[in-house]
C-alpha cells in the first residue's frame, strides 16, 4: 500500500496543477479529490495517468467510484 500511495503522490506532484498544493505534501487518503476542489481536467488527467502508470484499464464510470486515494489504492493493490 505504501508503495502504491507513493506512486500516486508522485503522479499528482508531477502532473496536476492545484493552486495552493505544495509538491510533496501528503495525500489525504480518505478525502474525495472532487470534494477537495481538484478540477475536472485534473481529475480526467489523473484517471488516464493512473491507467498508464499501473497498466490497468479503469473506465470513467469505475474511476468515479474510486475518488478517494484510499479506495484507489485498495483497487490497485488488488488488481
Amino acid at each position, binding site marked *: 500500500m505504501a508503495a502504491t500511495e507513493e506512486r500516486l503522490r508522485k503522479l499528482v506532484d508531477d*502532473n496536476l*496543477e*492545484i*493552486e*495552493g*498544493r505544495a509538491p510533496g505534501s501528503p495525500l*489525504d487518503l480518505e*478525502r474525495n479529490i*472532487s470534494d*477537495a*476542489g*481538484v*478540477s*475536472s*481536467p485534473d*481529475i*480526467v*488527467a489523473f*484517471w*488516464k*495517468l493512473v491507467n*498508464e502508470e499501473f497498466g490497468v484499464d479503469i*473506465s*470513467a*464510470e469505475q*474511476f*468515479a467510484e474510486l475518488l478517494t486515494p484510499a479506495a484507489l489504492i485498495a483497487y490497485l493493490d488488488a488488481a
Partner: protein
Amino acid sequence: MYVDLTADADREAEAAVWLDEEERGRWAAYPYSGPQRQFLLCRAALRATLCEQVGCANEALGFETSEHGKPSARVGGAEAPISFNVSHSGRHGLIAFAPDGLLGVDVEELAGRRNLDLLMDGVLGENERREIDSKEGDEQLRSFFRLWTMKEALLKAYGKGLLVDATTFEIPPVVRGGAPRGQLELPQLPGVTLQVEGIGGEDFAAALAREVVPEAGGEPAESR
C-alpha cells in the same frame, strides 16, 4: 452570471458572511487555497442571486446535493422554483440560472496543460479528435476547450459530470464547425433534447447546456 475569482481579501471577507454554518465548515476544510477561494466566492454569489431571484432571506436558503454531487436550492425546506449550475476554473466563475429543466455550465481557463493529449483521449470522439489534431498551438487549445466545456456542460445537465465516458457522443458537426449553438441527445439520456451553446471569453472557454422544453415551442427556457 460571471464571478471574478481573483484573490482579494476584502471580497473574500464579505463573501464569508453569506455562508451558513455547514458551508463555513466545508470552506475551512478545503485543503488547497485555490479551490477554497473558488468555493467561497461562487457560493456567496450564488446565494445573493438566488435570494434576489426567489425573493427570500439568505437564512431561509439551503442546498441539497444529489447522489452524483449536483446541488439544488431549497427555501424554507421546500424545493426552490429555479434551476442553477455552477462552474469555476482559475480566476473565472460562472453561474447559470433557469426557471426549470436540466441545466449545466462549464468554464475552463485557457492555460497551457501538461497533459493535453491525455485529456483529448479522455473526452473526444474519433471525429472530434481528428479535427483537433489538425490544429496547432493556441488555436488547438481554444478549440479543444470549447469542445471540453460543451461536453462537460452537457454531462452536468445530465447530472453527473465528466466521469461518464464523454467519448460516447460528439458535439454536432455544425457546432464543431463554428456555429454558436446546436442540439443533441446524449446516449445516456435518450428522449431528452439538450441545446449546447459556447459562451467563452478572451481567456476562458465556457459553455451552457439546457434542456429543450417542448411546451415552450421547442425553444429552451431562457436563462437568467
